[in-house]
């Protein structure tokens, strides 16, 4: 029984931090960083994290109104928002996947993404419903550290299951070796990193070939058969050296997206794989690796189905839809790397009642609305009495999901009085095209474009509030202009 990738998608946040702005800020301290100060790195908005980016990538993969039944959802990341509350479980709620599935967080290594994919493929081989593998990363980096320059925030999602799909698994292999190029101990905010030359010579150049050769052998292909080689590391010239060692053609080495995205940590292998699938032709062979305390290597053969199965936007699509950010201070603030005076209004207690949240989780996490079985009116939230003034029927509301609904803006403002981590706060009355409306927060507004009445909007899963006092964060759906997401 063959297994393969059935669908794929990705997500890159809208903001792209100009690396020259980082280098300029640190030039007084470490002029050497100037060498890395080229291009842009993807930068999550203040309301994005590994969970929200994974949800966005999953929607890109499955489609925003998917009804596919899944056997499980994995989330791979080393920047999981919760240490103890299953992060993948939040994704399953947001995607309305029901409760009969295996949800699993996979963490602890930069190869968590490829390891999650490998594990899911192994599980899929046993039959059953397809599995969704998501990976997303928002790595914290010390100011003036090299990884502040080389990393970027992004997510990817792959649906795997029985059958060849768009890319059939030919072989895979993992070398597990406790090679500690960097680490982050419990309760530590930042990575501790060893010398690059050692990582290159003893890590990349020895462990990657060992895993890749074993995977290619299992796949029955040689280096010359590989059309796309995904090596998700930021270090320059290493991928080319590895290709040479493996007998892979130079032109098969894929762009590691360092120029316009950055290396997305545990997600980056899958980000590069999704990007490769977007550009691959039937018959192409893809080798994807993931490095971290050893190395994962997986070989896929792209099928004819690639012609008809596409993500909604894809990594390539999102890469074209960025907005350059030249203010390094905004990055520092969004990543809690600078002590900002947030004002007295920011002191409001953001405690979330777990009972309140649980009782209303379909409404909050899935944006579940209601539709009256008597008059057909759609409303949000779903309540016991129909909102239609000419109906008011009691107990007639059927579940009606709104997270994928198209919508338009009825009224809006940009507010500089209310506390927002990124003022002004945008919000307005968002009206769903097929009924229902909500006065809701609006995110990813390009100030140069602004908002206008009638503007098409879509919904996106985001952090609503941070409760810094208790380490909790609330998630909810916000509206975003279609123009911003789709880059038209």
């Amino acid at each position, binding site marked *: 029984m063959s297994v393969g990738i059935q669908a794929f998608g990705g997500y890159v946040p809208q903001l792209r931090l100009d690396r020259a702005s980082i280098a300029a800020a640190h030039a007084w301290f470490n002029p050497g960083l100037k060498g890395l100060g080229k291009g842009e790195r993807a930068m999550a908005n203040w309301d994005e994290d590994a969970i929200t980016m994974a949800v966005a990538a999953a929607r890109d993969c499955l489609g925003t109104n998917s009804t596919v039944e899944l056997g499980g959802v994995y989330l791979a990341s080393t920047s999981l928002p919760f240490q103890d509350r299953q992060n993948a479980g939040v994704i399953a709620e947001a995607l309305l996947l029901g409760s009969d599935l295996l949800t699993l967080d996979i963490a602890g290594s930069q190869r968590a993404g490829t390891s999650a994919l490998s594990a899911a493929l192994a599980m899929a081989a046993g039959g059953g419903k397809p599995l969704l593998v998501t990976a997303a990363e928002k790595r914290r980096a010390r100011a003036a550290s090299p990884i502040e320059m080389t990393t970027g925030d992004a997510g990817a999602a792959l649906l795997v299951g029985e059958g060849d799909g768009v890319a059939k698994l030919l072989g895979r292999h993992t070398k597990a070796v406790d090679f500690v190029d960097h680490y982050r101990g419990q309760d530590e905010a930042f990575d501790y990193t060893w010398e690059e030359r050692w990582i290159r010579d003893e890590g990349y150049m020895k462990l990657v070939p060992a895993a890749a050769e074993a995977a290619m052998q299992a796949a029955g292909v040689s280096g010359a058969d590989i059309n796309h080689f995904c090596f998700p590391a930021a270090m320059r010239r290493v991928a080319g050296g590895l290709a040479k060692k493996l007998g892979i053609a130079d032109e098969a080495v894929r762009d590691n997206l360092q120029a316009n995205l950055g290396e997305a940590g545990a997600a980056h292998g899958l980000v590069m794989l999704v990007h490769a699938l977007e550009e691959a032709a039937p018959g192409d062979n893809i080798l994807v690796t993931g490095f971290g305390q050893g190395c994962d290597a997986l070989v896929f053969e792209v099928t004819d189905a690639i012609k008809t199965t596409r993500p909604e936007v894809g990594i390539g699509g999102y890469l074209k839809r960025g907005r350059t950010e030249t203010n390094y201070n905004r990055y520092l603030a969004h990543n809690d790397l600078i002590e900002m005076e947030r004002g007295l209004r920011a002191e409001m207690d953001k405690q979330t009642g777990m009972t309140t949240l649980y009782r209303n989780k379909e409404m909050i996490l899935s944006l579940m609305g209601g539709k009256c079985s008597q008059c057909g009116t759609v409303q949000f939230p779903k309540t016991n009495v129909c*909102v239609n003034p000419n109906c008011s029927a009691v107990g007639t509301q059927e579940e009606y999901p709104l997270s994928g609904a198209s919508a338009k803006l009825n009224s809006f403002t940009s507010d500089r*009085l209310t506390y927002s981590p990124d003022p*002004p706060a945008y919000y307005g009355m968002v009206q769903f095209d097929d009924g229902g409306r909500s006065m809701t927060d609006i995110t990813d507004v390009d100030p140069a474009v602004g908002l206008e009445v009638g503007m098409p909007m879509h919904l996106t899963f985001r952090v609503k509030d941070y409760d810094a006092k208790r380490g909790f964060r609330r998630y909810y759906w916000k509206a975003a202009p279609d123009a911003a997401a789709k880059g038209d």
Partner: protein
Amino acid sequence: MATGISDKVAILGMGCSKFGERWNDNAEDLMLEAFTEALGDSGIEKDRIEAAWFSTAIEEQHVGKSGIPLAMALRLPYIPVTRVENYCASGSEAFRGAVYAVASGACDIALALGVEKLKDTGYGGLPQRSRGALNDQFWANASAPGSFAQLASAYCSKHGISAQDLKRAMAHVSVKSHDNGAKNPKAHLRNKIDEDKVLNAPMVAEPLGLFDCCGVSDGAACAIVTTPEIARSLGKTDLITVKALQLSVSNGTEAQHNSWDGSYFMTTRKAAERAYKEAGITNPREQLSLIEVHDCFSITELVTMEDLHVSPEGGAVKDIMDGFYDADGPVPCQIDGGLKCFGHPIGASGLRMIYEMYLQMQGRAGERQRADEPVFGLTHNLGGFPHQNVCSIAIVGKEGA
């Protein structure tokens, strides 16, 4: 069949503290200031008051919950005191409670007192606070100016008016209120401003700038009401009576049903229609002498002119620019400076509006006294957000008018 409130209850006395940043006064001091004036005006002793209604909206910033703070501040003789809260329309609710108590015959003389002490938050504007355990999890991160500002985008879109023309009319609203407030010794803001100052002010919530927003103030206002017969027996003549008291509360249609376009107040239209009927007013544009509306923001006042059916729909901009609502115009609006300049101590505001009508009808409004003798005065007190709010309308006037 209910016959309405018209002429069943008379105002016996009213009082209002100075509004403003009362750094050195507690809420209790403000309550006593308003009450002392009202009691003196009524000519009765405190022990004639049989029941009281007490309004505050953001009580956690000052007195806390219940009717006890009023009873303690005034040392009321163990009479019933009911504390009411209905957002920024709380003051009108206290008045409604007292008036209905008298009209029902349950008591002869009743007190309504509202207070708010807002300048103890450490920052300008209304306090940022929880909106409820579940609401906090999905409501927009909205401030009051940001909520009301949206009227402007929806109004422009509906009426095809340019944002610049609307902003200019909104500026006129504020300039007019500052002109009026300058003549009011109890007003919080007494400075005159011009259109340029309004148009060039820092943005608070697009398109509302600093001068499109009312002040946040400390203050108290108070009314003592009784029946016309008792008022006359106490030697009062030329009585000011209550003609209408209406309240309309959103049921979620605006917030959740796509029939509302966001450019007006459904509640105000419904409350106004009922109030005119209750007061026997058939042509508000001709019959109303004065109006005091809930001008929390300039755009609120502008759209309210239409919702009250004084300006035709889409015609508020023209009326405002023509000076229709200026102090010397046909129907002055905010002749005391309004929320904009008299100030907005939430729990007191509804009562403050009625206080101004009461003074004007008695010819006691000093420098800002309307020359034409007022007959009918309408007050409009709003609470919440355009998409879900409570709207209270009171009409007071000369007895028998």
